[in-house]
């Protein structure tokens, strides 16, 4: 590669970025969606009930060419009027991910979470995806369990989207949406980094924020974005939420794409956004619902924890008669050797 090649690549990358962020982005988006100032809903922060944020984490404890052991954990953090009401979690669970078309641990975990067998087996061949599906299973199981404790006007807050990435999750998510609606419990999912675009690649959140500035809308606000404005979704049948974009605090640096269950009316949506805005006033992550950060911090499987889990596994393998040489053959990674140099 020559320096000229590199300069051309750089020019091309910048050109692409400028293509999706034209100076008239807000105007284009306004014209494309037919939005005006009243399209934005002004939100008054208010604690109408409890907010329970649920987040999960996954990490690989050991990873071999043919077999891996992952760790997963989900946590529910509940806040009421600015104070944590409870913090509960699944504890760390270990799952085995081999090269099977039907993961054996998945069915067990699924039954534990939802009391029934999954409609689709988990294919382990994409191990990264498999690990994330394990984590989502635990998150949805936690949400389903927590739901029993909540009352009308409370809000369940998920990290991500109301969209499943594995067919087996469709029934529990559908049930969660139904039960929330029946009990009058709000449900929302907050996406920290969205891939949503419109018009063939224009970033959605940036466009909405630019439009709010163009129209002089004061935060906090939220905006419902119709599906037909968005670029295509692969499996629409797995999508359970309507798309919203919200800026939850006047001093927030970032707006977020959020999803509320399909068909959530304006009044119900406003109640949910009011509660979310009320808990988005933390000085560290202003504009982001603090309970989600709290759940995230307690769910995260840190490097220290991973080391401990790995040592536990090695000790147990040793007791079962497997020596270190066997362990190295199974889970050794020559990258570790290379990293020494």
């Amino acid at each position, binding site marked *: 590669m020559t320096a000229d090649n590199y300069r051309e690549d750089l020019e091309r990358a910048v050109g692409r970025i400028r293509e999706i962020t034209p100076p008239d982005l807000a105007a284009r988006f306004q014209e494309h969606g037919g939005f005006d100032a009243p399209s934005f809903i002004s939100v008054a922060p208010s604690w109408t009930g409890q907010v329970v944020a649920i987040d999960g984490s996954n990490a690989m404890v050991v990873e071999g060419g043919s077999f891996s052991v992952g760790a997963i954990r989900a946590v529910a953090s509940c*806040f009421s009027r600015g104070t944590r009401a409870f913090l*509960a979690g699944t504890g760390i669970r270990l799952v085995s991910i081999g090269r099977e078309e039907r993961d054996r641990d998945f069915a067990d975990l699924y039954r534990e979470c939802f009391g029934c067998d999954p409609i689709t087996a988990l294919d382990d061949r994409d191990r990264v995806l498999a690990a994330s599906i394990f984590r989502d299973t635990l998150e949805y199981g*936690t949400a*389903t369990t927590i739901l029993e404790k909540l009352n009308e006007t409370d809000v369940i807050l998920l990290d991500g989207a109301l969209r499943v990435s594995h067919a087996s999750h469709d029934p529990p998510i559908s049930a969660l949406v139904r039960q929330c609606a029946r009990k009058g419990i709000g449900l929302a999912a907050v996406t920290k980094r969205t891939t949503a675009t419109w018009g063939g690649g224009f970033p959605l959140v940036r466009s909405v924020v630019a439009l709010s500035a163009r129209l002089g809308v004061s935060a906090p606000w939220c905006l419902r974005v119709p599906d037909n404005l968005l670029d295509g979704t692969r499996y629409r049948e797995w999508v359970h939420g309507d798309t919203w974009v919200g800026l939850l605090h006047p001093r927030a*640096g970032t707006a977020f794409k959020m999803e509320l269950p399909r068909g959530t009316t304006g009044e119900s949506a406003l109640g949910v956004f009011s509660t979310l805005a009320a808990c988005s006033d933390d*000085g*560290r992550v202003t504009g982001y619902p603090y309970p989600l950060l709290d759940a995230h911090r307690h769910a995260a499987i840190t490097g220290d924890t991973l080391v401990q889990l790995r040592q536990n596994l090695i000790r147990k393998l040793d007791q079962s008669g497997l020596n270190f040489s066997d362990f190295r053959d199974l889970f050794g990674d020559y990258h570790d050797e290379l990293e020494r140099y």
Partner: protein
Amino acid sequence: MMNLNDTDVTDHAKYRLVGDSVLSYRFAVPFDERLFVGDILKIADQEKGNTFFAKVTDLTHSSNFDDPKWDTRPHTDRFYGLGEDVFLLVEAIPLGYVDTGGVFRKPRTIPTKFSRVERPAEEDFLFLRQVMGDLEVGAMRTGQDVLSGVRVALHSRVMPQHMGVFATTGMGKSNFMKVFCASAMRARQFGLVLVDPHGEYVAGGGKAAGRESRGLVHCPAAADGLAVFTIREEAYRKKYSLSSLWLEYDDFRAEDMLLLFEHSSAQREVIEMLDDVPGSTLVDFFQRTEFDEARRWVGACGNPALAHRLGNFAPTTLSVIRRHLQILVKANPFLRARGSSLTDMEKALAANRVVLIDLPGMGERSELFILSVITRRLLESRKKDATGWGIAGEGGKEQQVLVTIEEAQRVLGEAGAGTRVFRECAMEGRKFGVGLCVVTQQPKNIDPRILAQLNTYVVMGLSDRSDRAIVAGHAKQDLSPMDTEIQTLDQGDAIISTLGIPFPVSTRIHLYEDYIRSMERERPKPAGEGLPTRF
């Protein structure tokens, strides 16, 4: 349905020792804990059975967050669950430990990791009574609090090993000196010389902390322990049973003039030539002699030996010496041809009394002149009588004297011929039982070699960084970790580092007036008290 377990958010990391060195401890406390620099904390080592003590030297904000600068970007003033991740990191220095036998030892070992850090109760400090001396000056302070039951007392036996009192104006230096004198009068273990050019020590009278201050004569121990020599009028002397102050010409030597006046090298040579000449001879000679250019005075003067010695000096040089002598005699009304209080002062010192020389309205020269005369006299007489291990007093006990020099940077700064007697005292006075109490606002202006001789440091607040550095660097116990505390000392507070007490002690110096009242209460009542006083 899956089981969710409540997450235990109990914090087990706080109040647990995590420091990694014998010389420095570290632990975390909640972010809203009320802890102060100077607080003394107890570390209970359950594994080894020892109880360690440590003094807080610094408090820093810290957190579990990966970004150490998280707190520079808050967008609101609301922080959820702050105490779970934000905390105070406490740095402390070890003071020592009480072993399983109840003996206090220097911190040559380290507490077991994660030992519990606690706030001690007053009874935890009972061990300190083992190490305190007989010269009470205050109560132990921990952070903002005063442990009134833990008295801080210096050891009189270490006083000849010199003491330094360092404080800027208004920090309570005079109050400390009065408390120290009161304790010295009560203990009667050494003689103490104090020259007061302001007349504030005898009977007080000025305002101290908004109240009428009291003087040394009001101390219950003054009757037996105080001897005052003053230049005040008779009525005042009678009121308080004070003695008149007199020095006679023979008490001083020519070298005293080096301390009081600036001299050229030729003039210094003259003074050095006269080193062995009694003061009365000097006064007589210079008063009677007119130094003419033709040198007729050499043959005409009544002291041919002295005239012969000085004959080669220029008349102008000798005239300057004569003028200085005239000033000396004229400016010090307590100086006369015959009759001196020095012998009485020496007797009082031999009886381990506080000798206060009261010179109200007199200038700096008079103060230094007397100090020079007394210090030289004490040193010379003791050198003469020395057995090599101090001066044997009554009962064979070594007799000790402490000479106080206020604003000591005047005489203990850079080397000069005039300050020889004080430097000599600082360097070798200990051998002869003569110590210096060096009082100064500017320790950086004291000769470091002299600072190194001081074995007791009383530091009462120094705002100048270089002053603090000098003091911390020369104290026998390392005071540098206590820099923040020294900087923030309140009026009347001190850090005392001395021999016999194993660590530097933060002290609230007693208020003199309160102290002598407490002495009054402690004084044994006369046997006849309460009996009918008349028939």
